Structure formats: structure tokens, C-alpha cells
């Protein structure tokens, strides 16, 4: 074979290999545009002209083919019913719009954020992304999520209310906290699986047989922390593991059980009443805590010693070696009848019901409150209904670049939150709905704390621990709970971490990418809205957003001490 032919042959092989490599790249949906520059998103995200707000109905959807990818930690093989519920709604929508298909991407919560991070960085994040309450603020602030503000202010073809937002339980007021959690003052998710007007707890499942074996009355559950300790001690003395703990989420959960009993409206003392009264109490809550942490005002309080001592004392009732027990292993202790109590969220209700079967008699009781008998600083109340939307499905900011796709995605989300679909959904998933008038399935009614007992709100509690460096505070907590470091050392170390992280946040908000630029963008959008004769309600909402952004900036400028 002549050399020239060999050379040509090799060139062709290399070219084909290169093309194959390109073809092997992750397939993006045909309608998914590339990730826009961060600055573009930052300016585009906060507002959307009302003229472009999707108002598509079932018959108005574009005829082109769409595949919408939905990412969630609930998958087809999950033991819970959530995926089945989502699938049902998606199938119902496809039945109405045969040109719109759905592809579900499942990733367990372990590794969920890591996958999402890489997807966003590589520009391959799906169109709809299920996010936990602690996730969306970060991505929204980075300009990676679509601002649904104007869509919520528009009419939904699937809701009887004037605006889509009014069809949610509690209406617009329940989105105040959501707006305060991001620097755009926007709404970045469509709520699901929660209801802001209900106080939904993460209660304890308990083994009635083990309670009886320890000489306890299985029908009598502890009503406060002292009674709870009596129960835990009786179980331990009987040779039963009182509580199944793990070295992952349990650290935060157990801290929350104790922490949320201290410091109601504690940060308000540092601020003028104009930042603490009315809706602003909740709406400015995050910023107030950030500034107080950054100023070192929450380095120590009169209640920290009690709070941390109770937490450490609590740890003696967790199984030996809990620091080496993975999240997935702790439930085994409960399910095999070795541990008497396991904390379970309503989202896992069906999963545990199926697994327990008739192995033992079981019941549910809420995490007991800590009252004045335990600490003079304790609140002694259950958490009030948050009156704030919690979490849900976010939209990738890139959909904004394809107006037809944007219209389809928003139309689907409005369909998703229609009362009919939600009623069907909660029955399949055994979940709560944020939509007004959707009933709570009787099986999970026990997870709702009675309203008359639920009154504590804006609780600062253990923020000075959890708002610090996520790579370090869980390890420090283990050292403290196992007696490796003392209370004072722990307190000073975690306070230092949260102060540093809060300073970074506050300074970024006072910097060139912070509130000043957001206010300017929001004002420009307001001018656009006025010029396009947008609806009065949308203009008012935009004006309210600007006023709040200005007040938040003023608050930081006034109170932050670098």
C-alpha cells in the first residue's frame, strides 16, 4: 500500500474517531440551549416581562416535539410513591399534549448535589430539577435558575384564581420567605409535597413491643423533653438501644430537635422595628441572621450552654458506635427490633409501613418540646406552620432562551399544580399538597402537629453551628458529642466558621454583584413593564420586590460591621 494512501487512511480514521467522540457527548434535548454566560443570567433571572409570561393552555402549546427532563431523588425503583405520582401527572399532560414527552432522571440524595453541580458546570442540567430547601438559594444566586415570579403572577389555565400564585395555600404571603432567600427577590421553584399552613413535623416511629418490654405504657407517648428522657432511660436500662442514629443526616436532625427550641425571634433585638415587623420578620429573616452572625453577635448567647448540654446529654441514648454507622444502616437497627425509636419523615412513611409489616406493633409521636422544666431559655412550643413555601421543582435558566420551551415548561408546571392533578397525586404518593383545597391523605395526618400547639417562629437556635463550613462542622459536632472536645472549644470553633461564611455572604451582597446591581436590574425591568402596559398586579409586585431589595441593602449597610 503506498504511503500516501496509508496517510490518507489514517487521517480518515482520526477524523472519524474525533466525530465519534463528539457524538458520544451527553445527548442534550433538541430544545435545550447552551448555558448562558453567568452575567447574562444574573441580569435576566430576576424578572420576566409580563408580555412574555406563558399563558399557554392545553390547546395553545407549540406543535413541535419536546422532551422535558425531570431530575429527582425519587425514582422508579424508590420504595416511596412519589415517582409514581409525578409519572402520573406527566402522563396526563402527555395525553393532552402528545408532542410533549418526559424523561425522568433519578439520583439518590447521596450525591445529588454533586451530580447537579457537574451538570450545571457542563451545561447539561435538565429542564426541571427537584431541589431540597437548602439547595435552590445557592443555585438561584448563581443565576442558574429561571425566575418564575412573573409566571406566578399570571393566570394559570388550570386554576380558578386570577393569578397562579393565588391558587397556593396561603397565597402570595407564603412566598415572602422564598423571595428573601435569594438575592433577586424572586421565586425559583414551584412548591410540592408540603403545605405552608400546616406544621408538618419529622416525628419518631417507635416500637410498641420494645416500649412494653421496658415497662413503659406503649399508648402513652412523651409530651415534653423530661418525659422523653425518662422513656429513653427506661429503654437503655432494659438493654434496648433507645434511638437509632447515624453519622450523616442525624447529626443535623438531632441538633434541629434541640436547637429549634431556643431563641425565638432572637435576632430581632439587633434591628430596628422596620426590619422586624409584619411580613418583614420572616422575609428578612435570613439576611438578619447572616448579618448577626457576621458581626459576631451570635458567637455566644445566654441559651447556647443549655442547648448544647441537652444535645450532648441526648447523645448517650444513641447506639454505641453511632459515629461509624452510615445513614442506610441506622434504620436496620429499628427494623430488626434492636432500636426502639427512629426519626422518619412523612416522605418515607409508606416505605417503613411496608418494611415493618407485622413484625412489631408501632406508632408515631412528635419530637417532644423542651420546656422551662428543662431549661429556662427553652421556647416550649412546636414550630409554627412556616407560612412559607418550602421546596419543589426548579427550572433551569437556560429554558429562557427558547420561548416555546419556556411556555411548555411553565404550562406543565401550572398543570402539575392544578387541584385535580394534585388531589390525584397526594393519594398516590401519600404526600401533602401546597394547593388550596387539596385534602391531606388520612394515613399521614399524624405527621401534622395540631395548630394550637404550634406557635414558635423565626427561631435562631443552632444557626451558629449549621451555617458554618459544611466540610467541618459535622466533624466538630462528632468530636463534641463524643467528648473529644469540650463545650467551650466547640462553641468557639463553630462560631468562627459561621462568622467567616456569613461575612463572605454579606460582603458579596454589598459588593458589585450584590443588591445594588439587582436593584438597578429590577428598576430597568419595572420600566419595561410600565412601557409595555403590563397588568397592574405585576407592576405592583415588581415595585414591592424593588422596595424589599432596597430595604435589605439598607439593613446590611446599616448594621454590618466589617
Amino acid at each position, binding site marked *: *500500500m*503506498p*504511503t500516501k494512501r*496509508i*496517510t490518507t487512511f*489514517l*487521517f480518515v480514521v*482520526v477524523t472519524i*474517531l*474525533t466525530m465519534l467522540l463528539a457524538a458520544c457527548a451527553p445527548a442534550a434535548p433538541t430544545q435545550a440551549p447552551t448555558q448562558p454566560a*453567568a*452575567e447574562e443570567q444574573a441580569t435576566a433571572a430576576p424578572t420576566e416581562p409580563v408580555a412574555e409570561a406563558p399563558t399557554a393552555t392545553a390547546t395553545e402549546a407549540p406543535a413541535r416535539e419536546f422532551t422535558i427532563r425531570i431530575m429527582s431523588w425519587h425514582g422508579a425503583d424508590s420504595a416511596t410513591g412519589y415517582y409514581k405520582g409525578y409519572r402520573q401527572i406527566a402522563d396526563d399532560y402527555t395525553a393532552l399534549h402528545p408532542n410533549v414527552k418526559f424523561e425522568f432522571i433519578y439520583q439518590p440524595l447521596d450525591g445529588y*448535589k*454533586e451530580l447537579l*453541580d457537574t451538570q*450545571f*458546570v457542563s451545561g447539561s442540567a435538565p429542564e426541571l430539577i427537584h431541589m431540597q430547601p437548602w439547595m435552590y438559594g*445557592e443555585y438561584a444566586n*448563581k*443565576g*442558574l435558575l429561571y425566575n418564575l415570579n412573573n409566571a406566578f403572577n399570571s393566570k394559570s389555565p388550570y386554576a380558578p384564581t386570577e393569578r397562579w400564585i393565588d391558587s397556593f395555600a396561603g397565597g402570595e404571603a407564603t412566598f415572602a420567605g422564598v423571595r428573601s432567600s435569594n438575592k433577586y427577590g424572586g421565586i425559583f421553584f414551584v412548591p410540592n409535597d408540603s403545605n405552608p399552613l400546616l406544621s408538618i413535623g419529622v416525628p419518631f416511629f417507635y416500637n410498641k413491643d420494645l416500649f412494653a418490654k421496658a415497662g413503659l405504657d406503649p399508648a402513652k407517648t412523651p409530651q415534653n423533653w423530661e418525659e422523653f428522657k425518662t422513656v429513653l432511660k427506661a429503654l437503655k436500662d432494659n438493654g434496648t*438501644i433507645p434511638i437509632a442514629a447515624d*453519622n*450523616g443526616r442525624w447529626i443535623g436532625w438531632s441538633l434541629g430537635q434541640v436547637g429549634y427550641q431556643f431563641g425565638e425571634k432572637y435576632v430581632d433585638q439587633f434591628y430596628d422595628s422596620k426590619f422586624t415587623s409584619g411580613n418583614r420578620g420572616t422575609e428578612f429573616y435570613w439576611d438578619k441572621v447572616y448579618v448577626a452572625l457576621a458581626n459576631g453577635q451570635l458567637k455566644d448567647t445566654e441559651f447556647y450552654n443549655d442547648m448544647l448540654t441537652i444535645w450532648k446529654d441526648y447523645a448517650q441514648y444513641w*447506639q*454505641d*458506635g*453511632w*459515629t*461509624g*454507622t*452510615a445513614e442506610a*444502616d441506622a434504620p*436496620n*437497627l429499628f427494623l*430488626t427490633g*434492636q432500636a426502639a425509636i427512629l426519626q422518619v419523615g412523612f416522605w418515607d412513611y409508606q416505605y417503613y409501613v411496608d418494611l415493618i409489616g407485622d413484625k412489631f406493633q408501632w406508632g408515631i409521636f412528635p419530637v417532644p418540646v423542651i420546656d422551662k422544666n428543662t431549661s429556662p431559655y427553652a421556647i416550649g412550643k412546636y414550630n409554627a406552620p412556616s407560612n412559607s413555601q418550602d421546596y419543589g421543582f426548579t427550572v433551569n435558566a437556560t429554558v429562557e432562551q427558547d420561548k416555546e420551551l419556556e411556555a411548555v415548561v411553565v404550562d406543565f408546571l401550572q398543570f402539575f399544580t392544578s387541584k385535580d392533578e394534585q388531589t390525584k397525586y397526594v393519594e398516590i404518593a401519600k404526600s401533602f399538597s401546597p394547593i388550596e383545597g387539596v385534602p391531606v391523605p388520612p394515613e399521614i395526618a399524624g405527621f401534622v402537629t395540631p395548630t394550637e400547639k404550634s406557635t414558635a417562629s423565626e427561631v435562631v437556635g443552632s444557626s451558629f453551628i449549621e451555617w458554618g*463550613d*459544611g*466540610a*467541618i462542622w*459535622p*466533624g*466538630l459536632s*462528632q*468530636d463534641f458529642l*463524643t467528648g*473529644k472536645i469540650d463545650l467551650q472549644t466547640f462553641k468557639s470553633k463553630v462560631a468562627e466558621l459561621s462568622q467567616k461564611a456569613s461575612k463572605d455572604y454579606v460582603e*458579596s451582597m454589598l459588593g458589585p*454583584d450584590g443588591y445594588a446591581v439587582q436593584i438597578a436590574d429590577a428598576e430597568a425591568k419595572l420600566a419595561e413593564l410600565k412601557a409595555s402596559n403590563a397588568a397592574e398586579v405585576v407592576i405592583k409586585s415588581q415595585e414591592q420586590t424593588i422596595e424589599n431589595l432596597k430595604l435589605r441593602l439598607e439593613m446590611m449597610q446599616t448594621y454590618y460591621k466589617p
Partner: protein
Amino acid sequence: MLRIIKTNKGQMALMGLLFVAPAILMNLIFDWYPMSEGLYRSFFKWDGYKSAVFVGFRNFIDIFNDDIFWTSMANMLFFLVMAVILMLPTVIASVALFRVRNQKTQYAYRVLFCIPMVVPWMIILLMWQFMYNPQYGFFNRTLEALNLAQLKQTWLGDADLVKWCLVFMGFPFVATNAALIYLGGLKSVSDSVWEAGALDGVGPVSKFFYLELPLIVGQFKLNLIGTISAAITGYGAQLILTKGGPGFSSMVPGLYMYFSAFKSQKYGYASALGLVLFILSLVVTLMAMKFLKNEDQQ
């Protein structure tokens, strides 16, 4: 074929380059680009998306003032020393297997060596996690069955034991890949060497130290590089089994780098940690190579 050989050197060079071009391209894209990007990012304060602010050597100064980093370095040093010491059982096992003259028996042992290779590392980790469980794990249940309940431990939940537990997971410390490399090395030695040794009356111990071991120094070096690199930068077992705990008892720099990136969104800091690990790994490997070279020359 003859015509190809007769073509000029320039054309041959071009052909050679074209042959290696795909490999070089992949190497540049998937190895060098991410590494260069990491190096670049280590000089920034960066949350992973935007707002990357150049901070010079700030990240490195912070690393050297970070208590957790030094704790993780001490833990890593422990794992590194243990990993190097525990290379020995593989060498001994390989030599022992090589000395088995019955081909069928040797084949059976080779198969036994290779079977663990097909079990995913993740499964092995989860099995060990199960065995270490203080309440229902294999070890404590066995101690109970032997009426030795007083010796029961919390294993991975014990700050003093956790590192030893992680090391013990390699039991019986015979690495399949390494063993195959040693066996390959021993088999490539001419039979005349072994025959000469036998004629000189070399005993089994002397044979190990003066013949077999020196003859596989090359293979040992290769495995040593892998072992050092894995011990300095690895963190898989810690991530799955302990999350660096209890407290920071099993935290290693690699895991700290991972947590800094994905739990703290300090990507610049994590990149700097990665660079420190890379340099450390390189220096330790070069030192080990130099030592072995000197030994070789002696």
C-alpha cells in the same frame, strides 16, 4: 511492505504522529486540561460557577494554617506507611505461588488470586461496613458466639480503632494486580538462574532475598508508585465508610478536598488542596524511586 520501509523518514514520522494523535488528543483533553484548570483555579477564591477572585497564594497559606488539613495529613501518613509495609505479603505470596511446581495447583491459586478482581470495590467496602457494624456485624457476632463478648468493639465508631479498621480491610493484603505483575516478572527470568542457584545450594530464604526479590525490583517499583499515589490522594474508603470520622479521626487530605468542593463550595481551596497532594505524591514517589535506584546500584 518493502515500499513502506523505503519511504523517507519524514513520511514515517508523519505516520507515527497520526497513529498516536488520537491518544495524544484524549490525553490532552481528559488528563492535561482538567489538571491545568485545577492548577489555575487554585489561585482563586471560587464557588464553582462565577465570582472567581484572584487571591494569589492565599489558598495555600490558608491550607498550611488549617488544623483539619494537618490532622488529615497525619492520618494520610499513617495510611501511607501501612500501605507500603503491607506490600510485602503480596511479594511473599507471589514468590510462594511461583515456587509451586505443580501447574494445576499453581493455576488454581492464580484463579483464587484473580476472583477478587471481578468483585466491584464498592461491594467490598459495603461488605466490610456490614462486618464492622457494632450491633449486627460479623466481628461482634463472632465474638459473642465465642463467649468473648467483653472484647466487642464499636470498630468504625471508635476514634482509636478506625484507622486500623480501614487498614485491616485489605486482609490478607494480597493485591491481585500487583501479584500478577510480580508473577509475570518471575516467569520472565531464565530457568538457568534458578538452576544455578540450586547448584550453589541456595536455601529458600536466601533464594528469596538474593535472587527472587532483586529480580523483581522493577515490578516492585511500578507497584510502589501506584501504592504511594493511591495512599496520598485516595479517599474512597473513608468517604463510604466513615465520612472522615469519628470527628476527624479518619479524615484524609483527598476527602477534605472533596468535602471542601462539594460541601463547602470552596472550589478554589479544593483545587489548591489537590495541587498540594499532587506535588506531595510526586515528591514522595521520586524519593522512593531514588532510594530504590541506589539500592539497585549497590
